[in-house]
């Protein structure tokens, strides 16, 4: 570069500079012009003197200088002249820069001029003159002063003139802003801003301009040099960062809020408008004719006024003409009659049941009847009677015996010709017939059937050949008896009623009777023989007091009560209460019975005595002996007494039944009454046995009491004997329970943390030398033992029950319960305490009011499927405001604004209370104008409460859990508004008067 500079200096003519020359080259030229090239020695000296300049100056290497100049960054540190001129070092750099730039522009033509002159000397001179510009200026100043003095004209004019004159000759181009004149370029005769401003004096805006100029002048110091690019860029970046930071920071509160929000809701801001029917209705505006008419009627001022004040005025307004009322009544009457008829019809139709229904009904009825007759003897009897009747009817009418037209026709055509249904129907009919005509044996209570069943039962009991023969005998006996009985009946009309016929028959009867008697006697003897042998066997069978007796008595008793049931308790109850009365009855009864009774008594004491006909018939012989035995044992009275006592409690209840039973008993013969006694005897013993069983059954510790309770009928003993087990329990309770407990605790501790084994060497190892004993155990062993011991002690100390002397807390971990714990601390948590505190509150609906449950359980993000999630929109958020739970992301702001006019509407909405605090609360919206009811079901009664839009409250009884409103004007009660509890003054159903807010 330097060389080129030199070159350009050497032949400046060749270098016709163009106006478009770059600034840099101009500056180069200027520098070249300014400073002669100093020898390197001088330069170094200068560098030494001016290190700051030297540091920057490319004093050594030409290459670096070139780079500098290429970049256009020229430093004048190497410009020696500046320094010499005595410009302050600090300013030098900046100063020169901007001045140079300005000057260069103006000096260019000067350069140009020089070239035009093309004299090296002049150039040099010029340079020198410029270099010693201070002096020159000084000289100029004097000259101009002199001129001023002479001419009295301002110096500038001369200066300019002088310059101009200098230039006039050489000016090649007309002066313009592109070609400034030389003195302009030189800085002499400058046109200051004041000069420019002066002509404007007086015009509008002048003062303002002046002011601005002043300001500029005041500020206008030397403009600093631009910073290096790196630094500038850094500064730029910094500024940009700050800017963008500010821009980004405005999002922070928004983002913070979203991050901290429990739930973010993405929703379309769908404006659903009013939420209540009342609200919608209130917005209604009449449009059509009709609507307008209605509105004018409804919102009539008079009516409204009346509404507001009281109901009396309303009545006046509500006048109805007589005709209208009549019409209305007629209409209603008509409607009512129609309704009534329709109802009747419906009822009728409802009553008609299908065939299947009836069939099923019948089936059910039958079933019920059959089950009933199994239980109730009366019902059974009734049923039997009914069956009998039906049988008779069937036998008379033969309704089911294929005598009908239909059946006959089918018969004619032949069964085979019929289809299956018909055949089945026929079969069914026949079956019905057979069913109906079947004899009802079981239900009959005739003596013959009784006997036969008696025989049957004895059948059941007896076994083996003997029994069979005895049965045969009995049958034979029965038949003969039957014959006798039957022949007793004499027809009292017809041929047979003629006297001779009667006589003949009597004779024949007598003969037959004798024969029969003989036969009977034979049978009797035979049966006795058999009985004698069989009794021996039978005694083995039952441990109870004589099996025959039991059987006979049992069966008889059952017969007499006419029940098939063998319920023991029932039977014994029955006889229990009947016995006393029967005694009396038996005595009161007629002679025959008395005689009979005596007969039996005789038979008691003479088992082999004379046998009356009845005796033989009923075969009481074998039992009597046993009964006597019981009498003799004296157990009778005791048993009876016991029975009385034990069953005393039941007597009352059973008395209702007893009349029926008595009836049946009185129908029977005395013999049966007696049998009942015998049964009583037996049942008495039985009862005793069962009670004993009970006594034995009850566990050992209460045995004493139990026996006591049965035997002593008086009040309970006040002192309860401790049972055996209890006594033992107490006796063996150790005195030193505490020691025992401690021992036990030690055991458990040892079990859970076993004690370390004592270190032992192999037996005999090293013992003979006594070395071992002297040295003791090897140190490592002792150490191991000690550490183990320490470990154990630590473990014991860590136990929860370490400090509790009388407590053992199990340290065993329950594997099954382990799954109830969290394995590790969940992610965002770092401390266990915080986590545990955060889960301390249950969030379920059972533990929280309904208003809070939703908020507590909301998912993190709520959005509907298909919802487009828009990018986040900026929105002013107060960072210090407490965050709300809900964050609606979207055009929330707008929504809010939209909702503003509706707020009044919202205010009066009742918020549903929590369910199940002490009752149930339900809210029901009723009327069209925002009526709401809030029901509370209290402890005893429910009441409902509501709040109207104008804050007035009403109350009513609720029915069950639902809410029912009764009145609107009377009473007050509790209401809830916007989730806040508010008691409205007044009186509730319970007379609660309270006022607060």
């Amino acid at each position, binding site marked *: 570069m330097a060389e080129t500079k030199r070159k350009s200096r050497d032949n400046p003519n060749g270098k016709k500079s163009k106006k478009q020359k770059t600034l840099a080259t101009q500056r180069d030229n200027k520098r070249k012009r300014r400073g002669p090239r100093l020898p390197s020695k001088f330069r170094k000296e200068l560098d030494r003197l001016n290190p700051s300049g030297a540091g920057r100056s490319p004093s050594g290497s030409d290459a670096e200088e070139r780079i500098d100049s290429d970049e256009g960054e020229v430093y004048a540190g190497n410009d020696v002249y500046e320094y010499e001129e005595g410009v302050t070092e600090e300013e030098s750099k900046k100063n020169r820069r901007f001045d140079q730039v300005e000057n260069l522009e103006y000096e260019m033509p000067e350069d140009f001029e020089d070239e035009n002159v093309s004299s090296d000397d002049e150039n040099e001179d010029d340079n020198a003159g410029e270099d010693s510009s201070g002096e020159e200026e000084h000289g100029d100043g004097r000259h101009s002063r002199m001129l001023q003095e002479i001419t009295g004209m301002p110096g500038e004019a001369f200066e300019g003139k002088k310059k101009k004159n200098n230039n006039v000759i050489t000016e090649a181009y007309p002066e313009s802003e592109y070609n400034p004149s030389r003195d302009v370029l030189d800085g002499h005769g400058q046109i200051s801003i004041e000069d420019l401003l002066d002509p404007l004096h007086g015009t509008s805006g002048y003062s303002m301009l002046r002011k601005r100029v002043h300001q500029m002048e005041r500020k206008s110091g030397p403009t600093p040099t631009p910073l290096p690019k790196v630094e500038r860029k850094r500064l730029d970046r910094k500024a940009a960062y700050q800017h963008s930071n500010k821009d980004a920071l405005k999002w922070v509160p928004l983002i913070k809020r979203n991050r901290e929000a429990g739930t973010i809701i993405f929703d379309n801001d769908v404006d659903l408008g009013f939420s209540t029917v009342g609200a919608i209705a209130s917005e209604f505006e009449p449009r059509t004719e009709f609507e307008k008419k209605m509105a004018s009627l409804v919102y009539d001022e008079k009516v409204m006024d009346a509404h507001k004040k009281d109901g009396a005025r309303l009545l006046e307004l509500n006048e109805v003409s007589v005709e209208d009322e009549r019409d209305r009544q007629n209409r209603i009457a008509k409607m009512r009659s129609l309704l009534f008829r329709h109802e009747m019809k419906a009822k009728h139709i409802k009553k008609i049941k299908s065939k299947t229904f009836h069939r099923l009904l019948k089936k059910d009825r039958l079933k019920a009847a059959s089950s009933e007759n199994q239980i109730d003897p009366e019902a059974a009897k009734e049923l039997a009677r009914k069956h009998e009747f039906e049988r008779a009817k069937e036998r008379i009418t033969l309704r089911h015996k294929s005598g009908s037209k239909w059946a006959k026709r089918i018969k004619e055509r032949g069964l085979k010709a019929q289809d299956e249904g018909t055949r089945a129907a026929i079969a069914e009919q026949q079956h019905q017939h057979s069913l109906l005509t079947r004899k009802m044996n079981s239900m009959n209570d005739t003596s013959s059937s009784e006997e036969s069943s008696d025989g049957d039962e004895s059948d059941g009991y007896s076994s083996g050949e003997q029994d069979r023969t005895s049965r045969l005998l009995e049958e034979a006996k029965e038949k003969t008896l039957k014959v006798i009985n039957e022949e007793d009946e004499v027809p009292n009309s017809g041929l047979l009623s003629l006297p001779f016929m009667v006589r003949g028959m009597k004779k024949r009867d007598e003969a037959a009777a004798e024969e029969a008697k003989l036969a009977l006697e034979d049978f009797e003897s035979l049966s006795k023989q058999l009985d004698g042998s069989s009794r021996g066997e039978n005694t083995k069978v039952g441990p109870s007091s004589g099996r025959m007796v039991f059987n006979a008595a049992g069966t008889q008793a059952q017969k007499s009560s006419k029940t098939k049931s063998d319920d023991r308790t029932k039977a014994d109850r029955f006889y229990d209460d009947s016995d006393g009365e029967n005694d009396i009855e038996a005595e009161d009864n007629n002679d025959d019975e008395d005689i009979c009774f005596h007969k039996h008594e005789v038979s008691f004491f003479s088992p082999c005595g004379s046998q009356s006909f009845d005796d033989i018939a009923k075969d009481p012989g074998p039992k009597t002996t046993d009964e006597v035995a019981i009498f003799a044992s004296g157990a009778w009275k005791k048993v009876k007494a016991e029975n009385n006592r034990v069953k005393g409690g039941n007597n009352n209840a059973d008395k209702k039944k007893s009349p029926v039973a008595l009836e049946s008993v009185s129908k029977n013969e005395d013999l049966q009454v007696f049998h009942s006694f015998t049964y009583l005897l037996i049942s008495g013993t039985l009862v005793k046995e069962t009670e004993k069983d009970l006594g034995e059954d009850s566990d050992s510790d209460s045995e004493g009491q139990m026996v006591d309770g049965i035997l002593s009928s008086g009040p*309970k003993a006040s002192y309860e004997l401790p049972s055996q087990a209890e006594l033992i329990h107490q006796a063996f309770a150790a005195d030193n329970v505490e020691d025992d407990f401690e021992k036990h605790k030690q055991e458990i501790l040892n079990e859970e943390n076993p004690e370390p084994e004592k270190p032992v060497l192999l037996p005999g190892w090293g013992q003979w030398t006594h070395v071992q004993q002297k040295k003791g155990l090897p140190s490592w062993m002792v150490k191991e033992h000690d550490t183990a011991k320490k470990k154990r002690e630590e473990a014991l100390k860590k136990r929860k029950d370490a400090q*509790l002397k009388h407590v053992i807390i*199990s340290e065993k971990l329950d594997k099954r319960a382990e799954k109830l714990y969290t394995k590790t601390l969940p992610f965002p948590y770092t401390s266990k305490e915080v986590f*545990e505190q955060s889960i301390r509150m249950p969030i379920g609906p059972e533990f929280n009011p309904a208003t*809070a449950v939703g908020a507590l359980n909301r998912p993190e993000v709520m959005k509907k499927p298909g919802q487009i999630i828009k990018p986040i929109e900026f929105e002013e958020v107060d960072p210090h405001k407490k965050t709300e739970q809900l964050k609606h992301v979207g055009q929330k702001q707008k929504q809010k604004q939209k909702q503003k006019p509706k707020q009044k509407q919202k205010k009066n909405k009742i918020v549903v209370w929590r369910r*199940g605090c002490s009752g149930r609360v339900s809210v029901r919206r009723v009327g069209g104008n925002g009526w709401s009811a809030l029901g509370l079901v209290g402890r005893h009664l429910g009441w409902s409460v509501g709040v109207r839009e104008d804050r007035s409250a009403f109350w009513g009884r609720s029915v069950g859990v639902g809410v029912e409103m009764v009145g609107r004007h009377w009473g007050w009660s509790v209401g809830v508004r916007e989730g806040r509890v508010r008691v409205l003054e007044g009186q509730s159903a319970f007379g609660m008067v309270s006022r607060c807010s």
Partner: protein
Amino acid sequence: MEEISEEIDIKVKKYLRGEGANLEVLQDKKLKGQLAVREELYGKSAKAAAKAEKWLMPSEGGYLEAEGIEKTWRIRQEAISREVDISSSRNQFDITLPDLGPYTMDFTSSGRYMTFGGRKGHLGIVDMKNMDLIKEIQVRETVRDVVFLHNELFFAAAQKNYPYIYNRDGTELHCLKEHGAVLRLQFLKNHFLLASINKSGQLHYQDVTMGQMVGNHRTGLGRTDVMRVNPFNGVVALGHSLGTVSMWKPTSSAPLLKVLCHRGPISALAFHPNGHLMATAGKEKKIKIWDLRKLDYELQNIPGHANTLDFSQKGLLACGTRSSVQILGDLSGAQNYSRYMNHSMVKGYQIGKVVFRPYEDVLAIGHSMGWSSILIPGSGEPNFDSWVANPFETSKQRREKEVRSLLDKLPPETIMLDPTKIGTVRPAKKKEKPTKQEREAEMEAAIEDAKDIDFKRKTKGRNKPSKRVKKMQETVAKAKRPFLEQNMEEEELLARKKQKTSEVVELPVSLQRFAKKKTLT
């Protein structure tokens, strides 16, 4: 106004269920913010609940209050009956049933129904609202205890040989033969478990929904008929003859807790409904009250004897002995139980059981001549929660509740001393030995690491492949060694143990007969 706000503040505290976490400790700002929001929500919820309670539960329980020199325990039942309303005075009655022995009874959780069992087999259910005998049966067997299952439809009776479950109509539904001859029965409502202790001291838990036997533990502490369930956590407590009280849960065969409460045998036991107080009575004529959270010594030691104890919903303690009942009350609120009321029955009546009727100020006394019911003001909770127990429940509600409670049934393992710990971080195991797999994995990892080591390239001659391989093998072996050593040690330990056990068992043939004899004796 201020009063109300104070009142509400107290209730809010109750509903907050403890202090919130200290968020200042947290580093994580996001979590902090979220937790703060949560806490705020909790606060709101608690406040709402408190307010709801304020207005929805207006009834407050009261106590007898004496004026001047009057003493509450001098006030007799007759005096009370003169003062109370008709419906309450209907709750004073004696039912005399002299024949069928001492009676025991149980109430449903709503207090509406009572089942009773006479020693001599008299069972029945009574609707206490209208004093209607719903069903009465005679089982002709000793009945030792009766207990309602989850609702009034079913009840269990401990009879002579087995417990049975009956329905309301007296139909026998189940015979629980596995339980044996049971002395006491208890039903765990939330877990649907029927707990029983039998004559041989075995504790059984049976799930009444599935019929599965959930737990069967030998207590090993002898026969006892003192058993109560802690209503707070479902832990069953047994009182033993050596003065200890043991607490059990179905899933562990060892007792959770054993406390030496008395020097004599324990005669009765009861739990406060909040689950923290326990009252025990010993045969050495002492009644003690314990705080279960702080068991080092009893809260109170009251002289007196009790055959039976029961806490009311409001915390009154009834003690029954012979023919008198004493009610103790914590009137000062400082867990200091003092005499509150007395009631003596006809001389000679032996009180077998006292039970407070829930949601009523009534104490039912089962004794040898039937049962009685007396008024104890302030014993029952005045406000019922129809979601918990509704005395006015309709059948439909009952059905719904049954379904709901079945859905909410808790598994048996949730029974533990402190159920609030459920969901928290698992307590660290005592000394968790790594399992075999874990140890193997660890070793593998160590070997891998050792293999990954890059060796220095040595100078020529020393960098032979054979040498490199050797070096590699050496490092691997080095990495392996500690693990192998550990394994060896363990094996050795095992072997030693085995040896010990085998030493005991295996004797020389010639000596074996002696050993046998020894074991026999």
